[in-house]
């Protein structure tokens, strides 16, 4: 599933104008679980990893997923403003575009159509994810009478 697949260069230029670019060095924490940071990130270059903790008091960490350029991360907290759910670290030097929710509101005031596509795409992606989780975790969705 693609994010904003049909958007024009002008749309991206507008998003860029309302975002800021952050640089991370290897090992830097991009997103830490529990922090409140209502923003959407787009990985422009570099590699990141999602780290899950387990074990005694959660001190053991597992690399759950590697994230490559072009990935959009942080959409859950972007939408609901709740604390971040995962830890994301930079593996290599990386540049990320950060669109804060406040900036998004401004962007939405300027270009409601683009804002609508952003929200719809995120909504679609989350809906898909919930379906996948239903299948994956319980599978009951389809069979419970």
């Amino acid at each position, binding site marked *: *599933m*693609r*994010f*904003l*697949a049909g958007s024009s*260069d002008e749309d*991206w230029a*507008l998003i*860029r*104008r309302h975002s*800021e*670019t*952050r*640089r*991370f060095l290897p090992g*830097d*924490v991009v997103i830490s679980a529990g922090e409140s*940071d*209502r*923003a959407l990130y787009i990985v*422009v*270059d570099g590699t990141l990893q999602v780290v*899950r903790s*387990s*074990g*005694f008091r959660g001190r*053991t*960490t*597992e690399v*759950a*997923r*590697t*994230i490559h350029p*072009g*990935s*959009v991360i942080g959409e859950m907290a972007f939408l609901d403003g709740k604390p971040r759910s995962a830890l994301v670290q930079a593996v290599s030097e990386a*540049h990320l575009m*950060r669109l*804060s929710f*406040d*900036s998004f*509101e*401004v962007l*939405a*005031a*300027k270009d409601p159509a683009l804002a609508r596509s952003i929200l719809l*795409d995120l909504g679609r*992606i989350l809906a*898909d*994810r919930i379906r*996948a989780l239903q*299948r*994956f*975790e*319980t*599978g*009951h969705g389809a*069979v*419970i*009478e």
Partner: protein
Amino acid sequence: MTPVSGDQEPATTAAPVFPNYMQMRRRMPIAAWHVLRVGSVAAFLVLCVTLVVRPAGGLFVLWGVLIPSLPLLFLVAPGLWRNICPLAAANQTPRLLGFTQGRTAPKWMRERGYLLAISLFIAVVTTRKVVFDTNGPAVALLLMGTIVAAFVGGVFLKGKSGWCSTICPLLPVQRLYGQTPFVTVPNGHCQPCVGCTKNCYDFNPGVAYQADMYDADQTWSAPRKLFAGAFLGLIVAFFTLPTPPAISRPELYVRFAAYVLVSAGAFFALDSVLRISTSKLAAVFATASINTFYWHSSRTLARSFGEMFGTDGDGIVWPLRALVLSLSAWWLLRTLRAERKFVAASVSQPVRLAPSQVQALSGEGRGSDGPEVHVVPENLRVIAAEGNSLLEVLESAGLPIEAGCRMGMCGSDPIAVLEGAEHVTPVAEEECNTLRRLGLGSTTRMACCARVTGDVRISLVPEKGDARATAPVAFDTSLRSVVVIGNGIAGITAADFVRRGHPDCEIHVIGQEPHPLYNRMGISRLIYGRSAMQGLYLLPDSWYEDHGITCWLNTQARRIDLEAQHVILGTGESLAFSRLILAMGSSSSVPPIPGFGLPGSFVLREASDAIAIRSFAQHHGASRAVVAGGGLLGLESAYALRQLGLAVTVLERSERLLRKQVDERCSQLLASYLDGLGIELVTRVEVSEVSGDDRVRRALLSDGDATNCDLFLVCAGIRPNAQLAKEAGIEVRAGVLVDTGMRTSHPGVFAAGDVAELEGQVLGLWPVSVAQAEVAAANALGGQEVLARAQLVAILKGVGIDLTSVGRFQPGPEDEVIVVDDGQNYAYGKLIVSDGKLVGGIILGRPQDAPHLIAAVKRQADVRDHMERLRQGDWEALATPPTLVGT
């Protein structure tokens, strides 16, 4: 999107990583399983009978053949056992025959059943050495007891929650060894699944155990971990402890318990020391357990084999051990791989951009070009657009920084430039004064003034400095005391400058509000922000004390006695003064509106107003607000109320917004932007009345319309607080009348800020107040300073779009006008050039050009050489190197 493993692109039709029993290939029809189950139950019953009538034979079959074989079966094909287990068959019979009550298992059983299962299992294993290994009828009784319990569980509870998936003592072993089956056999019982258990093994054998280990609920995962740890100790104890009567029975139980506890303790200790996941550790323990078990049980099996076939079975001992070792090693590898797949699949696949878009983004150059602002200790590296102020960079990065005048005068945004000071624009005069007032360390800059030209390292917390200003060479020693009425920016600036000029005199500052100097320009954020006054205070706590200034907060000046040179306070105390500086500021001006004063009607002037608005809106669940007044404050307030979640209508008396600050086109763009934010704007209308029984409910408009509202806010300008001066006999019109030296009609009394009226004007602007207070202070000390004519700057910030207007914006007949209009992006600029000189301009949505414009208009820059560039929209041309002023 289906969860996928690894880092590949999501496939559109990926097979499930961990197929559930409905997705697995079924090799045998369900009916065949039923037949097998009839056989297994019959065999079970035969075994029970045998245990009673021929105990030796029954015990041989059970302990010599069946039990030693089961762990290997669990390791290889656990599903096979789950399908033919006689206890499961008994448990599922009521469902199959339609007489189960199908109730949901009680909470304790669902959540803590596993602990019961573990306890039963340990109890049975321990008691083998005491009773069960030798007493056939006792074992028969035990087996019959379990099958009856399983059956009863099936009569009452739904699915397999009455036995198999909750309290079956063999369940912990099956789940531990069966987590990565070599052969998967789909569940042949549950038709259909009724969702009776969390992380059900029969539903999805590959996922169940990992899901347990990674469960966020400790009460769920901890018992599973406990068993994985304890099991090894139990096995070692069973095979190594002597059998009664070699030791007493109580001692046997105590030693069993000790082994189990040591083993479990070692597990949790390793879990806390080793940097591997608990799931991996559990798999390693399980591998050790099964090998320990078969180290001993291979002999048992060999003996049984020998007895059955009348041969010497010793030959199979080592091959059996080797088989288990290699199988379990393979199993361990498979388990580790399964864990990795589980973790990857349970973290959602990130949303991706199309490759062309990625290329466009990284190719744009904005990624790695541009100066880097490194914020410590947060360790954030933000790439700034060259020329942006540090304030803009920090704000857009969402970092906690306050903003006020954005001109370096209010002092709300001090930061420390730790490295790369040469990569920010130098300090200009206004900022220099503010820095001196704050008295912070030498690395301090006002973030709004420092524009980035190269890499810098900064800290949001300025370094402490030597607060005391250096004493002047000469000062008037006859001057004993200066009283300043007012604790706003005019009052504080005056007090500060008096102290700079006079190290000795008493200085009293009387403030009616309960707060030390705060950023009045930031109070609209109190409405929607959650940090209340935090960050709004503009001076370090010790500032008054460091400057030898006595501050009277929450104190009212009741009377001024000019004759006796005293200010009498509301508390009854009286302060003598040699010089008096009036800086009482202003209040909101409220036109006479019937109904104003009902709960829910507000003005916004002081921090307490904003705090009250936020409280009121929460308390009454306000959903609609009407803001009367479309000026700068009105728009900022409307934005703040909108941010708080209210539907907002702004009423503007004239035909457009900010009529006195911007031209028509700019008004229009601003209105359309606000409309996009959801702020409704109605022009040419006023409120004629607000009404409601208990609180504000409706606003009646001058055009006859009415609108419902819970909150009514008047932003209709200011009224100087000049009453006290008037009563004292000082000349007052709208404000306290002053000359350009800020002298009032009474010698020795000065006025500055919003309370002062100069040449018929009360401007009510922060920079004007600062400039006036400096002049008032200098002249109070005997100076002869004259207020420089200020170029008025109007700035609209904090509504998500930047607007700056300076000087004239309407051209005269001879003037040249340059307009840059990019309405689609809400960017607009206008310059007025008169006789080759820049005399005014407007900038909307181009924040980086604003400081150049302000500076250029202030110095009436000659722009004749740059007209072409300016017409093209390149307003960098207005920039000139600013004057360097040392700090």
